[in-house]
C-alpha cells in the first residue's frame, strides 16, 4: 500500500465511523484528525475528489465539505444533516418543506423540527417561521393550521392552499379518527 492509499484508507475509516454515528464527516474534522496543515487540508480534499471510493459521497457547503458513506446513510438523511451543519435555519426549514410538498406530496408538520435529527428549540423554530413568512426569499412557504391546532408549512410551488389545508387536516385529525 503506497502512502496515498494508506491515507485514503485512514480517511475512509474516519468517514465510516462518523456515518455509523449518524453524522456527517466535515473535511475540517478529517484534516484535524489527520493533523493536516493547510496544504494537507487541500491535499485531502483533492485526494478524495480524485480517488474516493464510490460509496463515499460528498456535500459541498459554504465553509466546509461533508462526507458520508452511502451504505450507512441515505442521501436523503445526509441532506438533513447537511442543512443543519450549514446553520441556516430558515433555509433548512424551507428546503425540507419544499421537498416534502413536491415529493410525497404533503405539508410539513412544524413540530417535526423539534425531533431528531433536527432538534430545533421551540423558540428558535417560532422565530425562524416568523421570519420566513415575512421574507421574499421564502415567499412560496405558507403556514396552515389543522382544527386541532397542529401547524404545518407547505410550498405554494407544489401545493395549492386548499390542497395543503385538506392534507394537514387529514394528517392531524382525520387519520386518527379513521385508523
Amino acid at each position: 500500500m503506497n502512502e496515498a492509499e494508506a491515507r485514503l484508507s485512514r480517511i475512509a475509516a474516519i468517514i465510516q465511523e462518523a456515518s455509523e454515528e449518524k453524522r456527517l464527516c466535515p473535511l475540517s474534522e478529517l484534516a484535524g484528525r489527520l493533523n493536516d496543515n493547510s496544504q494537507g487540508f487541500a491535499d485531502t480534499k483533492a485526494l478524495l475528489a480524485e480517488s474516493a471510493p464510490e460509496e463515499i459521497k460528498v456535500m459541498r457547503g459554504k465553509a466546509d465539505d461533508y462526507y458520508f458513506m452511502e451504505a450507512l446513510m441515505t442521501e436523503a438523511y445526509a441532506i438533513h444533516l447537511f442543512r443543519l451543519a450549514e446553520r441556516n435555519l430558515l433555509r433548512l426549514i424551507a428546503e425540507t418543506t419544499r421537498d416534502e410538498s413536491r415529493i410525497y406530496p404533503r405539508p410539513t408538520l412544524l413540530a417535526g423540527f423539534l425531533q431528531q435529527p433536527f432538534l430545533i428549540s421551540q423558540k428558535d423554530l417560532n422565530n425562524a417561521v416568523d421570519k420566513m413568512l415575512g421574507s421574499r426569499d421564502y415567499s412560496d412557504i405558507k403556514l396552515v393550521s389543522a382544527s386541532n391546532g397542529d401547524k404545518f408549512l407547505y410550498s405554494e410551488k407544489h401545493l395549492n392552499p386548499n390542497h395543503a389545508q385538506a392534507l394537514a387536516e387529514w394528517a392531524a385529525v382525520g387519520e386518527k379518527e379513521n385508523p
Partner: protein
Amino acid sequence: MSTTYGYTGKVLRIDLGSGEVWTEDTFKYKDFIGGEGIGYKILWDEVPAGTHPFDPENKITFGAGPLCGTGVPCSGRTTIISLLPTSPHHGAGSSHMGGYFSVEMKYAGYDSIVLEGKSPKPVWIRIEDDKVTIEDARWIWGKGIFDTMAMISSQMGKEAQVAAIGPAGENQLNMSVIRTGTSHSAGGHGGVMGSKNVKAIGIRGTGSVKVADPKAVMELNTLMDQIIGANNQMVAPSHPAPWAEYYSPSSRWTGKPGLFWGAANPPVETGECYPEDVHSIGKRTQKAVFDLGLGAEKYTVRMGGCAHCPIRCHSQLKVPQLEKYGMDPYVSNTCMGYASPRGVMFKGIKEFDGNGEDSSIVGTAIGATLADDLGMWCNYGQIGRDVKWFYEKGVFKRVLPAEEYASIPWHLLEKGDPRFLIDFYNRVAHKQGEIAHIADGAAWIAKRWGLGDDYWDAKENKLWTRGGYPVHHSNESAGQVGALISCFSNRDAQNHTHQNFIGSQLPINIQKDVAAELFGSPDALDAPSKYTRMNEYKARFVKWSLIRGRLHDSLTLCNWMWPMHFSPLKSRNYRGDLSLEAKYMTAVTGEAISPEQLDRNAERIVTLLRALNVRSMATTDLRHAHDAVNKWIVTPDKDKEGKVIPQFTPGTIQMEQADMDLGLGMVYKQFGWDEKTGAPTKSTLLELGLGNVAADLEASGLIPA
C-alpha cells in the same frame, strides 16, 4: 386417512338444538379456499332467504384458511361468517379476530367450526382435539369476557384458546362482538352466538398443520423478511432515519432510538429498527404511541398481536390510574378499539379528580376495557358519532322516556369525566332502557327513532349507505377506489388492500409506478386529495382490492398487512411481491397454483357474496337498493365564504354522483355482472362454477334480464 397439507381436512359441525356433533370433509369446499369463502358457501346452501340472524336457522362459521397455522407471516386471523344483525336486509357478512384461536382450531384438527340451531339453555363448547362436548354455561352466563376466559381456562388449562361473548352478545345486541385473547374482537356477530345460547368456545389442539414443502415455506419466509414493513405494511419510518430515503409522520413504523416500551421491566428501547434486521421487526410498530400519543410511551409494557405475526400491532399497557375506577390497570387494544371511546366522549376527557395529565389515555383505556369486557361493538366508530348527534340534536331527549333521560349522568359527559363511559356502556350492553337501542345499528335506529335525511346526509355522521355502516378507508383513500370498495359490503368495508397501498408512506410517483405495473396506467391512483375523474384503471384497482380482501379472509391472512405491494428496501426498488400468496399456497398444499388461479377463486367468493345480497334483498337492482351512497358523499364542499368547491379540484375529496354511477358500472363490468343493475349474470355465475347459485336465483326470478 391420507395426509392433507395446509387443510386439516375437517369441518366441525355442531347442532346446538339436538346436541349432535359431526365432521365433514373440507375438500368439498375447496373451490372457496377456506375461511370466509366456506362460510359464504354454507350460508348460500344451508340458510334460507329471509332468515333472521338470531333465528336458530341461521348458522355461524368460525373459519381458518389453509395458510393458518403453518407459520406463514400474519396468518393467525379467524374469519367469522354469518348473517349480520345490523344490516337492514340481514345480509351476509364477516367479522374478524386475530389472536391464537384459529391456529389452535387447526391444531385441534378443524378448518372451520359451524354452529347451527339453538341450545335450550346457556352452554359453552369444549373442544380438545377430537373430543367435543357441549357444556353447561350457567356459571359463566352474565359474566364479562375477561372473567369468562379466566374461568374456562381454569378448566381447560392456560394453553386453551377461548372465543367468548359478553353481556352484549348474550342480550343479542346487534352491535356486539365475539372476542378472543386480550383484545381481539370480531365485531358484529356476538348477538348471533348469544341467540344460540352459546357463551364461548374453548379449544385446545395438540396436533399440527402439515406442510407439503417446509423448505419452500422457509425460503419464502426469508423472502418475506425483505418485504415486510410495519403495521399496515407501511415501509417508510415515521421520522428521518439514516437508513431511509423516505419518511412520513403518518407512518406506523414509529420505532426509533430513544422511544421505549416504557413500562417494561427494564424498559425496552425500540431502537433504529433497520429494515434488514429481522430481529427488530416486532419493535417497528410502537402502536401505543401511534394510537394514543407520546404520553402512552411510559405506560407501554410491550406489543402483542396474533399468532405467526412478527408485527404485533396491539399495544399492551399498564395504566395505574384505572384502579381509581375499580378496574384492572392492564389494558390491551389497537386502532378503533382505542379511538371509539374517545368518540363517545366527544366533549373531551378529563379525569374526575382533576388530575388532567394523560386524561385522554386514562379515559380511552377505560372505554376500551369496558367495551372488551361487555363485548360491545362500535360499528367502526359509529357509536361515538351517534352519541354526539343524538345528544346535540335533541334526539335522546325526544325518544328516551323522561325518567330515563334524567337518570343518565350527562353532566359527566359534559365535564369529560370518563365515568360517563362506565354508565353508558353498562346501560347499553345490559339493554337497560331505550338508549340501548343505539346498539341496534344506524339502519334500525333510524327507523325506530324516526331519523330523517338530515341524519343520513350529515357529513359528520360518515354513514356510507342506507345499509347503516360508516366510512372505512372510503373516499379519502384513493378517491373512487376507496369510495367504490365501500359500496359492496353489508358493513364497513374492512378492506385494507387499497389502504395499505396508498398508506405505504412512499412518494406518490413510486406508488403510481406500481399502480401502472398492476393496473395498466398510473392513472389508477390519484395523489391524496387531488382527484381526477373515474377511469377504467381505477375500476381494475377496485376489483383487485375486493378480490384480495376476500382472498386474505379466506386463506386466512391478515388484510391489515397483506398483500405485499411494497418493500422497505431500495435494493428491491421498493417493490414487494404480489404472488406471495400463491407461492405460499403452492408450498403449503403441494398443489401448484398461480396468482391468477387463486385470484379467480377469490373472485368466485366476491360474486357469491353479491349473489347472497341479491337473494337477501330480493332484487337484482343492487345498484339502487344496495350500492347507492348517501348524499353527503356526492355533495360538493363549500369554502369559508360559502362558495362551492367543485369536485375534482385539489383539496376536496367529495365524489360526484354521475362519476360514482359510472364507476359502479365499470366495476360491475370488471366482475362480469350486469352493468345496469350490478347483479351477477347467469353466464358469469356459470363461468365461476356457481351453477347452483344461478339455478336458485333463476328459480326466484333474480337473474338480471
